[in-house]
């Protein structure tokens, strides 16, 4: 079993606690995200998976412990600064702008950038995602669910992230689209972007993941390679469904 050595880790959670209102959601979460790999968080509803991503991004307040990003603690760093430093985030559900065109959506993805190469980068992305080029003048609302998910990933990529935090990318998609979306996740990872993913569709996700982390009731139950978790009987029984 490979150890999660800090040197390889782009993002480290160290005994992180977070609350929502008065209720504790994370109760001392510790793990590391291996640079250049895909790591998937699995666990039942209410385990705190999405909160992990939000804590990393800084939209949930961490009450105890700390988060280390690229070997530097990022407590007190604003969300936008984290994004400037290479964190990109695809939240759960639809996170595009329905009454803006595909191209405008991509421009909004680049909101934090003020350099002149934005338009060029958009062109490059449209080359990479031909289906987006086809629809670049249409409103995002007119795209299918899967196309919108791909648009959202493209929006995140404009910032040239080092790590992509992606929440439930397969939610509400047809099986064919799910395959395509995961293929894109794999492709993005192939370009050197670390991926930290939360996914209900745990089997599929673990199949493309290098590592998996099982979260339950705000604590880390288990961390291992994706393959090992898939083959772990207890995990199978408790967290992967039948």
């Amino acid at each position: 079993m490979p150890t999660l050595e800090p040197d390889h880790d782009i993002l480290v959670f160290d005994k992180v606690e977070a609350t929502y209102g008065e209720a504790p959601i994370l109760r001392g979460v510790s793990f590391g995200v291996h640079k250049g790999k895909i790591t998937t968080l699995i666990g039942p509803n209410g385990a705190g998976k999405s909160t992990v991503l939000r804590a990393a991004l800084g939209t949930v307040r961490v009450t105890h412990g700390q988060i280390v990003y690229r070997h530097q603690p990022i407590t007190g760093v604003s969300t936008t600064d984290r994004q400037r430093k290479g964190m990109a985030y695809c939240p759960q559900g639809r996170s595009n702008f329905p009454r803006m065109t595909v191209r405008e959506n991509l421009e909004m993805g680049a909101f934090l950038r003020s350099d002149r190469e934005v338009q060029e980068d958009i062109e490059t992305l449209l080359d990479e995602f031909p289906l987006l080029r086809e629809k670049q003048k249409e409103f995002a609302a007119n795209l299918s669910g899967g196309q919108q998910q791909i648009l959202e990933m493209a929006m995140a990529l404009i910032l040239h992230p080092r790590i992509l935090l992606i929440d439930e990318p397969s939610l509400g998609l047809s099986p064919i689209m799910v395959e395509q979306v995961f293929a894109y996740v794999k492709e993005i990872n192939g370009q050197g972007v670390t991926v930290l993913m939360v996914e209900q569709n745990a089997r599929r996700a673990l199949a493309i993941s290098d590592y998996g982390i099982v979260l339950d009731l705000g604590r880390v139950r288990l961390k291992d390679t994706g393959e090992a978790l898939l083959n772990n009987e207890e995990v199978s029984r408790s967290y992967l469904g039948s």
Partner: protein
Amino acid sequence: MRWHRLVVWLLIAAVLALWPLYVGSPYLVGVSITVLIYIALALSFDLVVGRTGLLSFAHPGFFGIGAYTAALLGLHLGSPFPLRLGAAVVTAVLASIIIGVPSFRLSYHSFAMGTLGFAFIAQIIALNWIPVTRGPLCLPGVPPVDLRMGSWTWSATTLSENYYVVLILATITLWIVVRVAHSRIGRTLMAIRDDETLAKAVGVPVLRYKMLAFVTGAGVAGSLGSFFASYASAVCPTELGIAYSVNLIIILFLGGRGTLAGPILGAILFTGLPEFLRMAEAWRLVVYGLLIILASALVPEGIITWAFEMWQKRREGPQLGSAPLAN
């Protein structure tokens, strides 16, 4: 513990009953009557706003409709007060059904503005329907609150008598609100306020419950209007004005909505406050506005909610809240 409770209730009742004798000054009795009207109005307003989450601007409209109905009956037919009160309730309820049915289809912002529109139109009609309302000339000479039993008659001519009448009305209002709050209806209303989608999903007829709260609130407001017409002995279009709505909203949101103590404390503070500030006449309303801004920032859930929280924290130390677990 039961006698304990009884003693406190009796004590409160005694204080309230002896209040006009204690304060003596007609000005303070007058202010007390205004405060009691506002308490009752705020409690009934809270039925709509605090317990359904919908912001209605129509409430003073129902108050005004009740006042005009009672005044017209008293002036033209010489009807006794109980009849005027009943008629005021009926017209206010009818109006609330007419307003409510289309309005409840609207989203919450549109509902607020829709009811604001109703309030405005009602006031403009009162201002211009001269043959009936006399417009800005008001309807003066409304007979006082009276009771007739055969040859025996009684009428509330002094301030203190009016105080007791409104005290009874406010108590009845409180009773209605408590009954509603502690009944299945009240719990359902709270459930709807907290999660309307869920309530709908489990088959609660949401619209019917909201209408029930809206109509009950309107009826209470109408009854208070009938008292006001007699107490003030005149009804003017200003009684339907937006100023009332503004006051009620301030009372409710800064007192604490969805509670019983909140509207009561809010009414005492925010009708009493401008009166107290009479010392600094020129700056009075400047200070008042400033206090509202500060209160909305510092005690946004209302003074009473804030006070309870502080008190609970001190008593029980840090505790697990009841906020839903969120992923």
